[in-house]
Structure formats: structure tokens, C-alpha cells
């Protein structure tokens, strides 16, 4: 039985805003599922429907097999962590973390025990008597996590919990949240627009765009085998090369690129003469010195990124490509001629 299931769920705001468009989604028990997409893609609305903060216009939402469309939020037994923490500023940390237990017939003694245990879990023991404003942003976020988990919810919902933190802290919290989630094995739905967070934390990534689900899969699967141009461009640096198919045979195809040919793979039937788009990740392109028999090109621009450099390469026919190379040696210079080699398995026809 899945922790959360959405079937044919749609959410309309007013008459003409379609926030979520007929989506199906399952969150297996104990798994970490990330809803990833740009702002306005419907990921937050989806989370809020599971939470009970919005009600779906159509479709059914089930938690542990029970239809919960008509169950009010306070009877759903969910743990929610909000982007801005939403700790009650007028209550102590103990009262914040113990808040949910008050409504679950837990004795005062037991509440303070469980609060202490929850604070241990987020590695902030002993802060019971402080107020939220006295803690740092990262600490407040840990308290918010403790408050959401202490009630032993059926599902943990995280609404961009890291975006209010600064970069270093964000990575630390990312690991922390993931560890806690794995340890207690709670099904988690995580909403983010940050591909790095999505790839690093998730068991399944759900890429959303314009209210629809574009693709669902393990992080590596979604990254390496994008089903659509949107997924390819939203995750990482992708190149889209348009050309005509010159030859094709069982999953392989040759795509013409001016005078040259790009060997590509495909999981659909393509016709000779068909115009196709080939996706190539920037880091999958090998940049070699001239004279090695690859695609010739010229370096048009260099972005120095520290550990990496991002190059813009212009091919003979004017096609522009992004290349990403680790900097073991000094970076290439603008105007330099290079040759590109791309493993056919990394050239995928959409």
C-alpha cells in the first residue's frame, strides 16, 4: 500500500487558472519523492492538496489507501515543514514541538519526554525554554522538523524547507534531513525548484511543468534519460541539436550536422530524412585538440567556474553548443580550435 496516491487530480483557481492538470502520482511507503519544477508549475499546489490546505477540483487523494479528499487538515496526521519555518513566535521551543501532541491525548509527562527525544533527533538538545527568535535560521528549521516529526505523522511534507537558508547551511541541512528521513523511514514529499537538492536527496524525482507531470524517475534516470526537452533543459546544462536523420538501425541513428555526422541513440523509430532533436549534456562532450577526427569547432566563450569551465563552442555550420569540462589543466582560450567527441550513448534523440 502506498503512503500517498493521487489519481487524476486537478486544481483550478477561479475559472481559468489551471494550477494542477490531471496528475497521477504515487509516493511509496518510506520513500523520498521530490516535486521539482519552476515556480508556477503546480508543485506547491500539489503539496498543499495532499496537506489539506487546498481541496482538489477533481480527482482523488489517498493516504495509506484511505480517500482523504474530505478529511479536514487537522485530522490527516501529516507533518508539514514550511519554507519560513512557521514556528509560533509566542511559544517556547518546548511548546512549539509539543504543540501537536496536546491534541493527541498525550500526558504532560510523556509530551516533555517526546519533545526531548525529538530535539535530540535534530541535534538541538536542551533548547526547550528558548523562543524561536533566539535561534538561528538553521536551528529554527530543525525545530520545525522536530515539531512535524514528533507527532509520528503518516507522511512528511516539506515545502521548500531549504530555500530560506544560506548556501553552506543548505547543504548541511540537506544531508541532515535525508539522514533523519532514512532513519525513521517516513514517506516524504519534498517540493523544490533546486535541481541539486532534488538529485541529491530523492528516491524519485517528479519533474513538473505547467501543472502537468513531465517525468517521474530516479534522479539518475531523469537526468540522463530525459523524456522531454523541458526536463533536459531544466536539469543541468543540455544542448539541443537539430538535424536530419541520414541512417537508422535498431536504436541507433546518424544525424546529419552540416558536413558531419552525429551518432545518436533513440528509443523510438525514426525515419531517414526526419528532422529530429538530439539532446547532449554539456559535460558529456569531450573537448580534444584538433586533428583527432571529431566534430571541429571553435571556442567562442569561456565561463570560469573554479573546478569547472563552461565553454561555448561554435561548430562549422554555426551550431552553438555548451561544453562543461573539469579543469585539470588551464582552461581553453577564446578563438582556439577544438574537436568534439561525444559517445553515441549520450546523444539521445527526443
Amino acid at each position, binding site marked *: 500500500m502506498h503512503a500517498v496516491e493521487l489519481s487524476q487530480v486537478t486544481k483550478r483557481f477561479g475559472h481559468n487558472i489551471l494550477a494542477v492538470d490531471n496528475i497521477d502520482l504515487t509516493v511509496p511507503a518510506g520513500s523520498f519523492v521530490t516535486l521539482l519544477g519552476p515556480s508556477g508549475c503546480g508543485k506547491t499546489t500539489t503539496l498543499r492538496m495532499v*496537506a*489539506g*490546505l487546498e481541496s482538489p477540483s477533481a480527482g482523488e487523494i489517498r493516504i495509506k489507501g484511505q480517500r482523504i479528499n474530505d478529511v*479536514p*487538515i*487537522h*485530522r*490527516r*496526521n*501529516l*507533518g*508539514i515543514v*514550511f519554507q*519560513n519555518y*512557521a*514556528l*509560533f*513566535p*509566542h511559544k517556547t521551543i518546548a511548546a512549539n514541538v509539543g*504543540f*501537536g501532541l*496536546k*491534541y*493527541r491525548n498525550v500526558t504532560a509527562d510523556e509530551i516533555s519526554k517526546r519533545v526531548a527525544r525529538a530535539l535530540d533527533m535534530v541535534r538541538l538538545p536542551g533548547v526547550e525554554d528558548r523562543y524561536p*527568535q533566539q535561534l538561528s535560521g538553521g536551528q529554527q528549521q530543525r525545530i520545525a522538523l522536530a*515539531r*512535524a516529526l514528533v*507527532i509520528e505523522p503518516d507522511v512528511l511534507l516539506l515545502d521548500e524547507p531549504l530555500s530560506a537558508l544560506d548556501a553552506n547551511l543548505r547543504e548541511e541541512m540537506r544531508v541532515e534531513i535525508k539522514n533523519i528521513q532514512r532513519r525513521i523511514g517516513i514517506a516524504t514529499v519534498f517540493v523544490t525548484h533546486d535541481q541539486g537538492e532534488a538529485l541529491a536527496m530523492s528516491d524519485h524525482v517528479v519533474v513538473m511543468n505547467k501543472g502537468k507531470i513531465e517525468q517521474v524517475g530516479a534522479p539518475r534516470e531523469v537526468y540522463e534519460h530525459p523524456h522531454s526537452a523541458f526536463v533536459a533543459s531544466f536539469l543541468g546544462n543540455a544542448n539541443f541539436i537539430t538535424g536530419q536523420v541520414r541512417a537508422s538501425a535498431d536504436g541507433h541513428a546518424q544525424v546529419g550536422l552540416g558536413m558531419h555526422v552525429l551518432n545518436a541513440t533513440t528509443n523510438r523509430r525514426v525515419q531517414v530524412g526526419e528532422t529530429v532533436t538530439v539532446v547532449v549534456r554539456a559535460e558529456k562532450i569531450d573537448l580534444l585538440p584538433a586533428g583527432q577526427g571529431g566534430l571541429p569547432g571553435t571556442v567562442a566563450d569561456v565561463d570560469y567556474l573554479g573546478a569547472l569551465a563552461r565553454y561555448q563552442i561554435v561548430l562549422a555550420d554555426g551550431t552553438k553548443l555548451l561544453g562543461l569540462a573539469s579543469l585539470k589543466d588551464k582552461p581553453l582560450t577564446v578563438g582556439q580550435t577544438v574537436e568534439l567527441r561525444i559517445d553515441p550513448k549520450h546523444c539521445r534523440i527526443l
Partner: protein
Amino acid sequence: MSATLESRAALWLLGLFSVAVYIFQFAPIAVVMLLSFNGSRSGAFPMEGLSLQWYEKLFANDSILQAFQTSIVLALGCSLVATAVGVMAAIALVRYQFKAKNGISTLISLPLLVPEVVLGVALLMFLKLMGVYRSFGMLLLGHTVLALPFVVLVVQARLVGLRQNFEEAALSLGANRLQTFREVTLPLISPAILGGFLFAVAISFDNITATLFWKKPGIETVPTKIFAMLRTSISPEINALGSVMIIVTILLPLIGGFVVRRFSRGR
């Protein structure tokens, strides 16, 4: 160079002008308060020594004490009703979507814009039509209508600034709507509620125009009492009474504003 000179002159003129405005505004008030301590029998300059005799007389005058009592009961009564209704109205206007929301919002703040004379006559005639006559009840109802917009506006502003996440978090943790209101919303907006209440008290306490239309003959509030006394004679007692009024009506909104700012910081 000339630009800085010009701007310095402009600044100087602006300062002068501001000082003049304050003098015009506050000099009469200062005069009233000063003369309330006058030792002579006349309520005017020159002053002959300091004395608290007018205050003593004031507090020995039963009809004035009666007016104070009426004013205080009226102010507290109408403010309690206006606060209770106003808080509910503010929550509805900020947290819920419903038809005619803008219309209702405008309607609530209308008493701020309609001339009080018009409002006074209107309520008087309307209630007469309904068979209700001038009474303390009408006065209470009228003052409530006058004070309501202040409560609604203050509480509304606070609610808009209060992220809904707090309430959503409480709901998600298992508190129902009533428990969420009691445990989270109410404590977080309480400074605004208190502020709105104090504004309402001040509005009611110094209202005279509308009060003259609504009060039953024989019932006097402090402002109508002063008005009545002025018609017969200018007694120095009025200066003392005026000073007390000034203190109450200036102090209350000040305290209100202070409370709102002091307790809503960082929330």
C-alpha cells in the same frame, strides 16, 4: 554652491513653517491646560497664582462626575462590542473569500467618511422609524458604528502582515479551527486588538456631534456637558474639565500605538 544654499534656506523655511503649525495646533490646548491651574476667579489671563481649586470643584460636582461615568460606561461598552465585532469582521475580510467582500469592507469604513451630522441624523431617523427613541442604547449603538472602522482597520493590517503559515502549521499539527484561533491567531493579533480597543475608547470618549443627536435629554457625556456649561457661562472649571479630556483622548491612542508597535515587532 547656490544649490546647497538654496536647499539650506528651504530646509530652514520648512522648519519655521512646521514650528508655526505646531504652535497654532497646540497653543490653544496649552492655554486651556495652563489656565486650569489659574488661582483667580476668571477663566482668562492674567493668571493670579497656581491653584488646584478648579480640579477640586470638578470632582465635587455631581453632574460632572455623572457625565464622566456615562462617558466611561459608554466608551467601554461600545469599544467592547466594536472590538468583538471588528475582530471577527477583520478575520473574515482577510482570511476568507466571499461575494461582496469589497462592498462590505467599504461599508464598514464608511462612518469614517460620512459627515457625523449626516450619520447622526440618519441613525436617529432610522431608529425612530423602527420605533426606537433616543436612549442610552441608541447612543451605544451609534458609538459602536463610529468606533468599528478603527478596530477593523487596525486588526486587518495586523492580519495581513501575519503569515497564514502559522495557522496552517497549527491545523496540520491537529488543532481544529477554534483551537488554532485561540492558541495561535489570537495571541499573535492581540496587540492589534488591544490597540483597536483603545482607539475605539478614544473615539467614543471625545465624540460630541453625533452624540448630541442620539442622547436622551438629561443624559450628558463629558463633551456634551462641556458644551452645555459653555452655553451658560465660561467658568474656569471648564478649563480643568477640558484638560482631563485632553489627557484621556491623547493618551489612549498613544498607548494604543505604542502597544501595537511594541508587541508586534518581528512577528
